[in-house]
């Protein structure tokens, strides 16, 4: 079924805030979320009293975490969404908020994330899983699949099918670091070379340490409302032109690991927007690992399957390149507090507003945002947004 185009251009991202912290042993996760709420509401000139929709997910939050969050903020929203589909959740929350606002179920949606993953010493990449806890997990857990490993399985297959090289993957990390060097809040700002990536220790072949995202603390917030209401707020609204979500999994045992959820969610989001890949001025995408960025670019349709390696070469995804990707430095260099989807939206909105100073994409009018959640080689989700200036 083709998705309805009924909400295209009618819903806006009105306020955004990225917490500048990357290391917050002195803060709780709820506190970070509340500080972010304050930042995003201040950004657009609304107050907590205006919020009637609440959206959140987290690593430490249980299934009822959004209820605890509402209590912490003393909020009693009319619309509550605790959807957790991994790191992409917050991109999906924007889709859900847009639908709810368009349907008249709430007027102002607040999307929050906060985490102290780094100061809690969470070994996200190489310390999860292990003992079998349930019947479904028992087909994976005996084998010690790390998070890095699940992405490495995809990278190895990509190299086999298309001849993608470690140097091409490394160039993604180099580009992200270059972007981070222009972002005063980024955690890792010292420039690196392809050689630095290739000589960093191998975590799970073919991925090296510098092919992997960093772990930080942090948080962010988004305020979503109708385009009509957003017009009167403090900042120029950024409009939602298209959105989509998808999942990929092991099916009945015959998945193609190189076709990821982004294929389905982006095809729907672009169709809804009426815009083409050529209209996009910048892309913010989940770069949990270099391979994630590469296969995401292919599946978003910016290049053909197998062409991702060549696509990222020669600075083409850098500022000033054909398609700037993650001008903030992404998860590879700016921040990665466990889940990163919210920052993809924040950076895209700020770029479209033209407020990114040293890392501003010139004449940015359309952005493609794509979050990936879960483990790419086993089961994952994807959520896409096509955003534009009003």
């Amino acid at each position, binding site marked *: 079924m083709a998705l309805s185009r009924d909400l295209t251009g009618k819903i806006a991202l009105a306020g955004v805030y990225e917490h500048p912290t990357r290391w917050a042993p002195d803060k709780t996760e709820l506190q970070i979320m509340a500080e972010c709420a304050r930042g995003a509401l201040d950004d657009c000139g609304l107050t907590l009293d205006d919020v009637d929709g609440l959206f959140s997910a987290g690593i430490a939050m249980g299934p009822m975490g959004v209820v605890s969050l509402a209590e912490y903020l003393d909020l009693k929203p009319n619309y509550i969404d605790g959807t957790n589909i991994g790191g992409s959740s917050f991109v999906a929350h924007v889709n859900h908020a847009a639908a709810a606002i368009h349907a008249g179920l709430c007027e102002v949606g607040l999307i929050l994330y906060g985490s102290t993953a780094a100061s809690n010493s969470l*070994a996200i990449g*190489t*310390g999860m*899983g*292990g*003992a*079998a*806890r*349930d*019947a*479904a*997990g*028992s*087909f*994976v*857990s*005996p*084998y*010690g*699949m*790390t998070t*890095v*490993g699940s992405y*490495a*399985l*995809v*990278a*190895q*297959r990509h190299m*086999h099918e298309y001849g993608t090289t470690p140097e091409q993957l490394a160039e993604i990390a180099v580009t992200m670091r270059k972007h981070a060097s222009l972002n005063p809040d980024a955690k890792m700002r010292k420039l690196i070379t392809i050689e630095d990536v290739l000589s960093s*220790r*191998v*975590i*799970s*072949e*073919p*991925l090296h340490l510098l092919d992997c995202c960093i772990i930080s603390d942090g948080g962010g917030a988004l305020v979503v409302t109708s385009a009509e209401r957003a017009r009167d707020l403090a900042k120029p609204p950024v409009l939602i032109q298209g959105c989509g979500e998808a999942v990929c999994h*092991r*099916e*009945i*045992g*015959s*998945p193609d*690991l190189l076709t990821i959820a982004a294929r389905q969610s982006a095809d729907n989001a672009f169709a809804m927007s009426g815009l083409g890949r050529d209209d996009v001025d910048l892309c913010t995408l989940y770069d949990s690992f270099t391979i994630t960025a590469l296969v995401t670019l292919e599946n978003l349709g910016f290049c053909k399957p197998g062409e991702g390696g060549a696509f990222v070469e020669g600075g083409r995804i850098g500022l000033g390149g054909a398609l700037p990707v993650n001008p903030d430095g992404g998860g590879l260099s700016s921040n990665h507090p466990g889940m990163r989807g919210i920052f993809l939206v924040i950076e895209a909105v700020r770029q479209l507003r033209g407020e990114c100073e040293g890392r501003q994409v010139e004449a940015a009018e359309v952005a493609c945002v794509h979050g990936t959640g879960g483990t790419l*080689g*086993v089961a994952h989700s994807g959520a896409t947004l096509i955003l534009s200036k009003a």
Partner: protein
Amino acid sequence: MAAEISYSKPVADWETRAFWEGCGRHELVLQRCRDCQTVQFRPRAICAKCLSSDIEHFVASGRGTVYTFTVTHQNHLPAFRDACPYVLAYVDLEEGPQLMTHVVGCDPQDVRIGMPVEVEFVDLERDPAKDASRGIAAGTAIPRFHPS
């Protein structure tokens, strides 16, 4: 030299018990739908293609090829820490489905995509009281593969 992996016991339920008990007999047991002939993995009580409940179990050949793999050099978990580097892989079975597994019996650097492999089983120690609570009354084993 890497240490042997100490495999943890799987948890089974009504839908997956036949697979794990098959492993205990050193048989790789798959499912086929009697209505639409679909072979599926992981095991389910229902055919995911046609929702039929008429599912039969059969013993697979145990032969397959490596679909993809990664040599794991870092895992903080005690059961795997000293076993690094080990080869995590997906193997395409002759019968169609793909399994996550380990490839052993050769130098990790010699593993290749497309390499023919054959199943082997690592028996897990039985503990009748606890095993029943994990859904597997009979003995079980972990399937993994070596070059054929």
